[in-house]
């Protein structure tokens, strides 16, 4: 981050827009109406105010395929690139009728035949036809997802930088791990360190938790305090320049009986997960890696694309058919999760960022692991 709010660099912007426009053509979309922050950033290259949690759908950015023009919800021009002129900015509005009136003024709105939106609410489903009277309203998220799934060279650079900030947050929290500290205080350390590193927009605020000895994933203690003998999971995540940098590690507090075996199991699982990250491989190989290692599949997705938010593929035990259809390709960046649990001991959770290259996987995360500390 700098001392000014700056638009994303030209190469980053143009690379992404070309991919978005190509997918609009492929999906036969005349106009895309975007409400999700990740998509708005992807297309506009403009930093947006970060607010926690999902947002209700509202037309925040509009891209017209024929002209390539981008219209953006922004009351000011700070951070707006110069290829979005002032006349294409429309201000914050609390009245959806005024939002619709802004959309009606967009050149190409009245003649568009197919308009994609990245999500929709029943309210805007009724209102949008007023702005696009001749259009069929269809899903536009599939087109955006197809654009986002392969990263440009500049995007990979941004992801590397975001991961560096997340790793600084993790390191700060591990340094303060001790018996008696609370999970929340540890999360506060992660967020403080990332902000000190220039980024006050976390991708997760659930940054540290004591793993349970009794249940594969439930909360361990009611008071949220760390004690000797605990395995403590850290999940550090940041949104830097819009890009999600993530890393996960698990550290023991004092002596944790049985943890050496558990870390060994994690290492064995990770070897198989890493091997599954090959260009051309079906994404379901990642699920198979758990089975081959003899580990239970955890409740969270074991892999998902990293970019401006979540990207395909999302690999979960609940989506086997989806994973079977997905193929890993060079230019994908994945957050891959290894998770092993032992009754009476706790869990070891680790999350790595992996770039799929034509030659195989490249691990982008480099935070130290506790595996060495416990003698594995």
């Amino acid at each position, binding site marked *: 981050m700098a001392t000014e709010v700056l638009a994303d660099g030209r190469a980053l912007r143009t690379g992404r827009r070309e991919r978005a426009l190509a997918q609009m053509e492929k999906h036969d979309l005349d106009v895309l109406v975007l409400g999700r922050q990740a998509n708005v950033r992807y297309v506009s290259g403009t930093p947006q105010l970060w607010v*926690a*949690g999902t947002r209700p759908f509202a037309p925040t950015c509009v891209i017209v395929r024929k002209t390539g023009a981008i219209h953006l919800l922004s009351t000011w021009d700070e951070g707006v690139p110069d290829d979005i002129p002032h006349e294409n900015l429309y201000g*914050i509005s609390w009245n959806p009728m005024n939002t619709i009136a802004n959309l009606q003024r967009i050149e190409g709105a009245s003649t568009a035949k197919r308009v994609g939106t990245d999500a929709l609410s029943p309210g805007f489903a009724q209102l949008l036809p007023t702005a696009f009277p001749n259009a069929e309203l269809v899903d536009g998220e599939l087109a955006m997802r197809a654009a986002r799934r392969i990263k440009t060279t500049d995007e990979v650079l941004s992801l590397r930088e975001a991961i560096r900030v997340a790793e600084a947050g993790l390191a700060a929290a591990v340094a303060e791990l001790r018996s008696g500290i609370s999970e*929340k205080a540890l999360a506060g350390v992660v967020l403080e360190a990332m*902000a000190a590193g220039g980024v006050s927009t976390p991708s*997760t605020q659930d940054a540290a938790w004591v793993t349970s000895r009794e249940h594969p994933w439930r909360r361990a203690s009611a008071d949220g305090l760390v004690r000797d003998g605990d395995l403590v999971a850290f999940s550090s995540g940041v949104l830097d320049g819009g890009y999600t940098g993530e890393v996960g590690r698990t550290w023991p507090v004092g002596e944790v009986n049985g943890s050496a075996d558990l870390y060994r199991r994690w290492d064995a699982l990770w070897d198989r997960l890493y091997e599954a990250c090959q260009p051309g491989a079906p994404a379901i190989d990642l699920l198979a890696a758990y089975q081959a290692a003899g580990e239970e599949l*955890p409740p969270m997705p074991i892999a998902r694309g990293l970019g401006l938010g979540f990207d395909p593929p999302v690999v979960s035990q609940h*989506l086997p058919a989806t994973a079977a259809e997905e193929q890993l390709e060079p230019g994908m960046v994945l957050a891959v999760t290894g998770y092993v649990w032992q009754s009476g001991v706790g869990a070891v959770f680790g999350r790595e960022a992996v770039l799929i290259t034509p030659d195989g996987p490249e691990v982008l995360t480099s935070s130290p692991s506790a595996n060495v500390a416990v003698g594995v």
Partner: protein
Amino acid sequence: MASTTSFLPALSSALDIPDTPDIERMRRETGARLRSAMADRGVDALILLGNNAVVYAAGVSWPLGDAGLSYVERPVAVVLADDPHPHLFLPFREGASSESGLPADHLHGPVYLEFDEGVENFARVIEELIPAAAVIAVDELTGAMRRAHSRLFRSGRPVDAAQVVGAAKLIKTPDEVSCIRTAVRITDTAMVDVQAALAPGIRQIDLSAQFTRRTFELGAMASMLEPIWQVMPKYKADGVWTTHGDLALPLLTTERELAAGDVLWTDVSITYQGYCSDFGRTWVVGEEPTPRQHAQYYKWQEIMDAVLGVARAGATVADLGRTATKANGGIKPWLPHFYLGHSIGVNAAETPMIGTDLGDEFDENFVLEPGMVMVLEPVVWEEGTGGYRSEEIIIITEGGHIRLTDYPYDPYGER
């Protein structure tokens, strides 16, 4: 269903706010409000995807993450008109870790509504839970849900759930107010240290770092907004370009070093048990305000006193807007893209808002009721001063209001 005799009476003074929120009672009471709003609109079932709506409807809370990841790993709630307990579909961490206290048959595994396969799985469960003829309201439709429209919404086009949830949220129960007050206290306490650290040379982002860590130590669940420490221009013409020619707000925090004399407009929000705080004060870096800057604060206080004088049950939000404008000499004391004030709850800004582009008719027709929580944030501007803006949170009562904000006005004033 819970008996209404177990509900707390409406608040009349700060003493009526529970010291600690009773989360079970809160869920019971907000659940009753939600089902009453469903009945008013003839809605039989709600399908809720939005994080804030799920927090409200199911009484679960978790540290909210970035939207981009939250779309794929998010809790989903299904509320039925004749069932006091919501059904919850929980991912790994989000919400699952809070003791939700729901019957086991109402807790379900994660659903992935971004994907056709995920929607297919969800539709199978929904068919069991919701009768085919039921009127369904939903707050968001993913692309995959739109493709499975006829399976999910067998009785036809769904109603907008935002209207239903919005109506229920208007009046806060005493336990909800207790959550908001705790969030406000955490915020105010953390801010004392942040303000003490304010000095020339400190970076905007350092204030964010310190604030966030301190609030987590004090028990905050999450930050709701990237903290804002906006350096105000002396003159409007020196500020960034805006669509309306007035001031921009909020502008994003950077690594900019603050200089002596900088006027900062601050704005932050954190959550406790899923409920938001709000905080806004104007600070001057490393110097005492000039007499003209002091005058800005006194004008702001005059406006605030006038608005508080009319803020009670039975007043319309237009009454508040008019009073503020009159106290400011006929000029609206708020920015054209915002409002004089807004409500607060599981969202940092909720309905009603005062003086927005929803228009005069909306404001004239919106009557304040006991239990509504309002954040009042007049803006005063005189060229050359950097202006003055601060926020006060109040709860509307039968006879007036209860103030929740308890933070000094240094370096401008003592009150």
